[in-house]
């Protein structure tokens, strides 16, 4: 009802102004270019600050005409400039105005305009572009972002052109140039490698960046400059032991984490530092002793503070907004700090309420925080000592298992990685995790489309099977199903294959287990082994497979599965004479296990293998220069003598 009433009203208002507005548009079509120019100038004066007029002109189709004039080569630069100014003015209006302009493909036209030799025209185009991109309705992907666009900018000489702006006397210009570099160089080795060698006024860019890190420079400048240097370091353009990283960039980023800085700066500082030190243990060690960083980070969890809640609503709002960001940044940095050094992990865990914070973080609603918390937990789970102590005390496995239910893949990847560590044989968490249905979960992960999840799933199962009791092994086999096992053995990813073979090896250990599994799955396993040994696989895969055979050969009844399979025996013989010593050794393990004295039927097996020419090979190997092979061959030959 309201709509019906409103529509005619709007129409009437429109018709009133249309008359004058139409006049402006009509003049754009005049044949005399001079009159067109005057028309555009008059239009410019008419629309300034007048949203209604702007809307009218858009409705009346001024935009396509203006764009046409702007793009026409025959238009005078003056006219083209004025057109750009008017379009910029229209863009200043409502969001609908911007949408209309975007619909007319204004971006392309304006970008084209940047190629003009006329500076005033370029300026007008840039102003208009700026206005349009500031608007929230403009999609960001219209602007260059991401690695492809970094490359495009790079190929168009962005580095050289922007570099000299870094030494501009205007702080604003300097800052924009610096920001530009921080974006260009981020995770881009090509740009980073170039940047180290660029010089401005005889000074190399890294030196200029270091100057911008000076402590009396504005924080924004220090931080952005540190980001540039960080990107360059991670790209390998600057060594991690270079003093500009160790003595300048790292301390600067630690300072950014201090309580004195704004919350936004602390977030950015911690994230950048986490990235800088992620893979270098020396940087991790240095950061860990700098300015009590580990203790400083604990403060990131204290927002919103109880003080802010009482004193200042605005502050509370601000704190709340940044609380998640702060927590995830702290988790990320803890994760990087504790990635490699046991002492640092210990220090982190000893920080007040650390494990509780991680546990809480695991169940936060924010995906970012959960992810960062899991990463932190993963990093800390690399410590044998911690797995046995604090991880157990805080029953970390519980929230971790919860995270693993229905989490997005990016969280699942890290969480399952963590689970791998928690399932290690010495981890006390292993038992409760098994009881909470981990096998089923992990088996389902092995079916994931996501490669990392498949690897982690099978990896965890492998860890779980190591020296496990019969029941667990059976549960794994049952949960996985033979089909899935074979599926994994033919996985295109070598990592999955290796971990699956590792699982098989762990399953096939201790004689009763071997015999039991082979009695139920013998046929399929032998098939799979044959397949892999015949296939095109790397040495490690084949070695692992031969080790599985050696394990089977250790069984009592399982032995027969090999002895009755001439094909397999020939393969073993073949690998005994292989050029790779590792494979030779693995094949010898099989033979040793088969011919071992004091076991039932050993005589027959020895005879059969002698007939196959194995003894000759053993004699030859006993002369080998490789001491391992030589020893092994001699021991095997002794079995025949006894």
């Amino acid at each position, binding site marked *: 009802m309201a709509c019906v009433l409103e529509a005619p009203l709007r129409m009437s208002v429109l018709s009133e102004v249309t008359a004058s507005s139409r006049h402006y548009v009509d003049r754009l079509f005049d044949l005399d270019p001079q009159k067109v120019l005057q028309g555009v100038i008059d239009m410019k004066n008419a629309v300034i600050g007048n949203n209604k007029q702007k809307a009218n002109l858009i409705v009346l189709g001024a935009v396509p005409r203006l764009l046409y004039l702007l793009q026409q080569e025959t238009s005078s630069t003056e006219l083209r400039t004025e057109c750009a100014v008017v379009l910029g003015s229209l863009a200043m209006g409502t969001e609908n105005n911007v949408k209309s302009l975007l619909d007319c493909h204004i971006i392309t036209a304006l970008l084209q305009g940047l190629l003009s030799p006329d500076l005033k025209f370029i300026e007008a185009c840039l102003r208009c572009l700026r206005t349009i991109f500031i608007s929230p309705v403009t999609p960001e992907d219209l602007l260059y972002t991401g690695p492809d666009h970094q490359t495009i900018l790079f190929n168009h000489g962005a580095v050289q052109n922007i570099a000299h702006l870094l030494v501009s006397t205007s702080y604003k210009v300097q800052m924009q140039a610096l920001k530009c570099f921080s974006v260009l160089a981020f995770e881009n080795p090509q740009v980073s490698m170039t940047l180290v060698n660029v010089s401005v006024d005889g000074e190399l860019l890294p030196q200029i960046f270091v100057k911008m890190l*000076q*402590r*009396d420079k504005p924080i924004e400048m220090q931080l952005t400059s540190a980001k540039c240097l960080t990107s360059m370091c991670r790209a390998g353009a600057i060594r991690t032991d270079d003093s500009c990283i*160790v*003595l*300048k960039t790292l*301390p600067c980023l630690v300072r950014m984490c201090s309580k004195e800085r704004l919350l936004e700066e602390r977030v950015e500082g911690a994230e950048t530092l986490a990235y800088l030190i992620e893979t270098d243990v020396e940087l991790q060690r*240095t950061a860990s*002793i*700098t*300015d*009590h960083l580990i203790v*400083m980070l604990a403060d990131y969890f204290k927002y919103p503070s109880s003080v802010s809640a009482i004193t200042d609503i605005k502050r509370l709002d601000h704190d709340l907004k940044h609380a998640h960001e702060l927590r995830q940044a702290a988790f990320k940095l803890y994760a990087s700090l504790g990635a490699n050094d046991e002492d640092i992990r210990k220090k982190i865990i000893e920080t007040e309420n650390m494990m509780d914070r991680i546990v809480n973080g695991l169940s936060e609603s924010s995906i970012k925080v959960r992810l960062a918390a899991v990463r932190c937990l993963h990093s800390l789970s690399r410590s044998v000592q911690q797995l046995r102590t604090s991880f157990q005390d805080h029953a970390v496995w519980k929230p971790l298992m919860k995270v693993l239910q229905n989490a997005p893949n990016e969280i699942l990847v890290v969480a399952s990685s963590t689970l791998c560590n928690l399932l290690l044989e010495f981890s006390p968490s292993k038992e409760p995790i098994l009881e909470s249905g981990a096998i089923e979960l992990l088996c389902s992960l092995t079916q994931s489309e996501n490669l990392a999840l498949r690897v982690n799933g099978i990896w965890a199962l492998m860890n779980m099977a190591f020296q496990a009791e019969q029941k667990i092994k059976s549960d794994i086999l049952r949960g996985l199903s033979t089909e899935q096992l074979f599926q994994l053995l033919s996985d295109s990813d070598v990592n999955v294959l290796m971990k699956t073979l590792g699982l098989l090896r762990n399953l096939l250990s201790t004689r009763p287990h071997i015999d039991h599994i082979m009695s139920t799955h013998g046929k399929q396993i032998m098939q799979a082994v044959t397949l892999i040994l015949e296939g095109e696989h790397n040495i490690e895969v084949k070695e692992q497979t031969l080790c599985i055979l050696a394990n089977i050969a250790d069984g009592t009844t399982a032995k027969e599965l090999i002895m009755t399979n001439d094909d397999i025996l020939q393969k073993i013989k073949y690998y005994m004479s292989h050029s790779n010593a590792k494979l030779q050794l693995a094949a010898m393990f099989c033979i040793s296990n088969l011919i071992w004295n004091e076991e039932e039927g050993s005589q027959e097996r020895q005879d059969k293998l002698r007939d196959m020419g194995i003894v000759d090979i053993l004699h030859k190997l006993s002369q080998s220069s490789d001491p391992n092979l030589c020893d092994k061959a001699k021991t095997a030959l002794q079995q025949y003598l006894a």
Partner: protein
Amino acid sequence: MAEAGAGSLHGGDAAPPSPPREQELSRRLRRLYPAVNQDETPLPRSWSPKDKYNYIGLSQGNLRVHYKGHGKNHKDAASVRATHPIPAACGIYYFEVKIVSKGRDGCCEILHSKEETFQERVFGFVFSPLPPAIPECLLEKRYMGIGLSAQGVNMNRLPGWDKHSYGYHGDDGHSFCSSGTGQPYGPTFTTGDVIGCCVNLINNTCFYTKNGHSLGIAFTDLPANLYPTVGLQTPGEIVDANFGQQPFVFDIEDYMREWRAKIQSTIKRFPIGDRLGEWQAMLQNMVSSYLVHHGYCSTATAFARVTDTTIQEEQTSIKNRQRIQKLVLAGRVGEAIEATQQLYPGLLEHNPNLLFMLKCRQFVEMVNGTDSEVRCFGARSPRSQDSYPGSPSLSPRHGSNNSHLHSTGADSPTCSNGVMSTKSKQSHSKYPTLSSSSSSSSSSSPSSVNYSESNSTDSTKSQQHSSTSNQETSDSEMEMEAEHYPNGVLENSSTRIMNGTYKHEEILQTDESSMEDSCPQRQLCGGNHAATERMIQFGRELQMLSEQLCREYGKNTMHKKMLQDAFSLLAYSDPWNCPVGQQLDPIQREPVCAALNSAILESQNLPKQPPLMLALGQASECLRLMARVGLGSCSFARVDDYLH
């Protein structure tokens, strides 16, 4: 090696460092701590051979410390303090200690090192060989503390264990804040590590560094006057200190930059509380009063016109003062006294000290040949002026000769404004409010009165002509001064001197312009015999005046010194090149001139000092005071930083 051994044998603890190295240290310390007045508060440069426990041995210019005790238990701990406490004016202070040897292993080194063995023998101590004398367990535990302590803290202890003592210990990485039990602080440290200790005297905190990495705040609420301190407790421990001898591993200057920026932004953001342009009015008043004080009449008028303000003093009064100042600065002190008596009757009579000062100056100027009393004899040939050291070649181009102005100002930077005024004030307060005039007091010695009377009448007559001519030219001079004035003010802190110098040149120029040739040889009283006679006579009068003042007001050592210095000039054949010849320098007229100007202003109930200079002097004095009471921020708020 042998040389080094011999060196330590003779020199013992105090082996003198090579001079270039010392110079380098001084240079570096000056750059690091420019606000420190090293005469008042010297900086630590080495460990003190006097302020240490006897288990401590020093070598290498008292920078290397080694332990030579038994190291059995904590009772064998030994510390050494630096030569001086850390001055607050440093703002940020920093030193580093390199761990040369963590002990035990280092013991062997010591025994085999010729240098160190010599050293030990000098002290009558021979190292026992390694264990079994010392239990193994103690050797494993290395005690080494680096930190700070106040004077008088027991040196048989490690830094940090006692009250007013603070330390960071290498064995456990703990910090000790005046307590026997440490707090977890940082990493442990050992041979090869460089540990730095930074004292922030602005917020009274301290942090350490390890190999150039800041370890975070260790102590807060530190007391003042702490000494760098190091303590050892294990045989074989050796550490080297760096108080600025070498570049530091940690970038301390970057940290200083941060604090300089912090303090300067605090000053910048300091709320002024501007109520209806009060602030602007105050600033305008400061500028205006400064111009008026120094007699820049035209500039002051122009400034008042533009800013729509009023000048308190009357135009004629300003001009009168200026005329008198010019006379003094031209060395024509007799005329200046005359003019003062004429324009401000009773002024000098109420200020006998000032009068005496002027008369002494007049005597000096007579020697110089500048004073009118001797010039009149010389028939307009006081050529001696030409060859004043530092006087410009007298040509029209002098107006743009800025560089000369600066160099003149820089020649006497110590004669700063604040100091001068303080002195004159003191002398005033010593003889407060003289009720009796000089004429009444001199009645006890009639002869001297007669002399001075006849003297003054003489000079009045003879100088009538010259003073009028002077007045005629004064206006054009004013304009020129106004033109050049800004150059002088902004260049150096010793503002007043520069103005004075400048005026002096002006006057020289007007004087010289009438003289054609110049005589290179300076002679006593311009070489005129009669003038010399007159000078000697004047000297006698001055002597009598001194005696008279002494009788009336008691002994005055300052007067005595002035008189002595002035008369000493006659003892040399070439007064310009004698130990007291400095008095003849025209620059010495300036304090006299300033004192007279101030006295005149005071007599007119005007401030005797321009508020601008008062503010400047106050700011400088405030900074000095801050340094004295231990407020470190003074180091980053220098007055010079704001006078560019």
